[in-house]
């Protein structure tokens, strides 16, 4: 189903939660809403579902204005971050419930419930109560209930956020496969850039109630329209610094300078902002050499995250392997000038950056 938002605005108690937003979601694909808490992901989903009415603007499904159509009539499925199932129903009854409400015959209900239960590996649990299931199984039940309806629009609001690491990986792999055959348009909210990259599809970056950018996930990641977009789509946060361009020279400080890439050389001389993703800063190798004063070095799995100050900028370096540094130590870091993102004074992206 094609979902279009036309100039949607949502205000609650005089506060604007969603600023004028127009968005055309891609039919039959994963559409990811990426943003931190309070960026408006959930509100956007609730507007699409019909759980809330927009203050102004319209929502269209397949060329039909559904702005005033109540939630019950929209045939939308939604899965929440918290595992929501009907506690007084068994797993079977939970999955069957939307079909029973729709008035399907008993044999039709049974057939579809069995098929979905098999797909989501819930067959042995069908007679249990939701409270007797593990977190992962509860969320599978919720997913099964969302899938069984065959809705054209499925809204997944951080469905994996409350699961432990291993289950999250497992379900994240399964999700695109589950929805691939249904032809449903899936809207998936997440606050994790990595999750967006792994799921692929299309991504809309959101920042404080505004859609910053919408496009294929890889493109949104590589070519952020603005510094805000780059910040939303980077975890740990993207490193920034003010630089001065004169001719083909880029200068961060007296000691740190490098040769400007071709698409920057042709710009006017003056001040620019650069952005370097944390994983593009290395602790060895070639490229621009900067001296960083280590603030804190932490180890997360097989990665080391080193927080440092470079010429009064707080930077983060994320690198493979385990590296121990003393706090206050001066360390040489390197980054590839070709991979820097350049932003002008309005924080707009200057395109034509080298592909990764």
């Amino acid at each position, binding site marked *: 189903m094609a979902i279009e938002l036309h100039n949607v605005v949502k205000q609650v108690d005089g506060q604007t939660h969603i600023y004028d937003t127009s968005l055309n979601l891609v039919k039959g694909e994963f559409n990811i809403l990426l943003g931190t808490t309070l960026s408006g992901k959930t509100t956007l989903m609730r507007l699409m579902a019909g759980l809330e009415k927009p203050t102004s603007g319209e929502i269209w499904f397949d060329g039909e204005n559904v702005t005033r159509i109540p*939630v*019950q009539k929209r045939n939308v499925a*939604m899965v*929440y971050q918290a595992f929501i199932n*009907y506690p007084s*129903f068994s797993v079977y009854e939970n999955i069957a419930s*939307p079909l029973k*409400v*729709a008035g399907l015959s008993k044999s039709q209900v049974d057939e579809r419930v069995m098929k979905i239960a098999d797909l989501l590996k819930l067959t042995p649990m069908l007679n249990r109560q939701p409270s007797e299931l593990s977190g992962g199984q509860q969320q599978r039940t919720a997913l099964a*209930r969302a899938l069984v309806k065959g809705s054209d629009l499925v809204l997944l609001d951080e469905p994996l956020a409350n699961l432990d690491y291993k289950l999250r990986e497992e379900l994240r792999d399964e999700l695109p496969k589950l929805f691939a055959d249904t032809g449903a348009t899936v809207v998936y909210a997440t606050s994790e850039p990595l999750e967006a990259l792994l799921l692929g599809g299309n991504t809309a970056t959101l920042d404080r109630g505004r859609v910053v950018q919408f496009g294929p996930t890889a493109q949104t990641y590589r070519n952020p329209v603005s510094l805000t977009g780059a910040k939303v789509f980077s975890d740990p946060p993207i490193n920034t610094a003010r630089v001065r361009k004169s001719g083909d020279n880029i200068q961060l400080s007296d000691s740190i300078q490098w040769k400007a890439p071709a698409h920057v050389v042709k710009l006017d001389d003056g001040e620019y902002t650069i952005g370097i993703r944390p994983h593009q800063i290395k602790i060895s190798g070639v490229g621009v050499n900067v001296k960083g004063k280590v603030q804190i070095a932490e180890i997360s799995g097989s990665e080391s995250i080193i927080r440092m100050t470079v010429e009064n900028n707080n930077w983060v370096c994320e690198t493979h392997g385990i590296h121990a540094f003393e706090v206050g130590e001066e360390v040489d870091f390197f980054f590839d000038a070709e991979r820097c993102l350049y932003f002008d004074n309005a924080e707009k992206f200057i395109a034509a950056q080298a592909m990764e």
Partner: protein
Amino acid sequence: MVRLPKWFIPTLYIVFLMLPIYGLLSMSFKTTNEILGGFSFFPQEFTLENYVKIFTDPTWYNGYINSLIYVVINTVISISVALPAAYAFSRYKFLGDKHLFFWLLTNRMAPPAVFALPFFQLYSAINLFDTHIAVALAHCLFNIPLAVWILEGFMSGIPKELDETAYLDGYSFWRFFLRIFVPTIAAGIGVAAFFCFMYSWVELLLAKTLTSVDAKPIAATMTRTASTSGYELGLLAAAGSLTLIPGAFVIYFVRNYIAKGFALGRV
């Protein structure tokens, strides 16, 4: 230092707690003469006569029937009115919702005696005096606020997303409310019903004021009989013992839910 065995204090507590109830039960099997004659721990002349009298004399057993009728009516009214009210308080924000919620509770702060006279006049005026429904309605005064308060606590423990999921699944409000929501808070309904039952069962003043013959509650029967035919203490003890039964019966069914209610801080 001498260490008391673990069971000592609880046992002592239970013995003290049960002593008056034992006294009542033991008295109910004695004759009035024995009771007046002096104290004995066990009945000297064991008799069932007191119970036989209660179960054969209509003025006695009708008291139980009357009490049960208005208590059940009251519980049904209180719960069915409190369910939607508690739902509104737990799910919606409206002007003065917190004040209204608190005001409900203030209904429990005045002694029932305050309302006895106006109720008496009101019910007499509309010909409801001496009917079961009169007592049931009068008891709603303090049972509905109580039920709303308890149910609101249970309902607020259910995430709002459950309601939304049901709407997304296509349920209409009432279908969701009756098929999904009410079973989900069954424990809360059990607890609320128990408290309504109990308060209505033990309330004497309003029940006595609003009835004369047809709907006379058992507690009123007990006081009146005692004053007209001398002190029939054995009979009174038997009647008293029987009033314990419905409460014990109801508490047996909701005992697990009440623990849950305590955990939610609403009982």
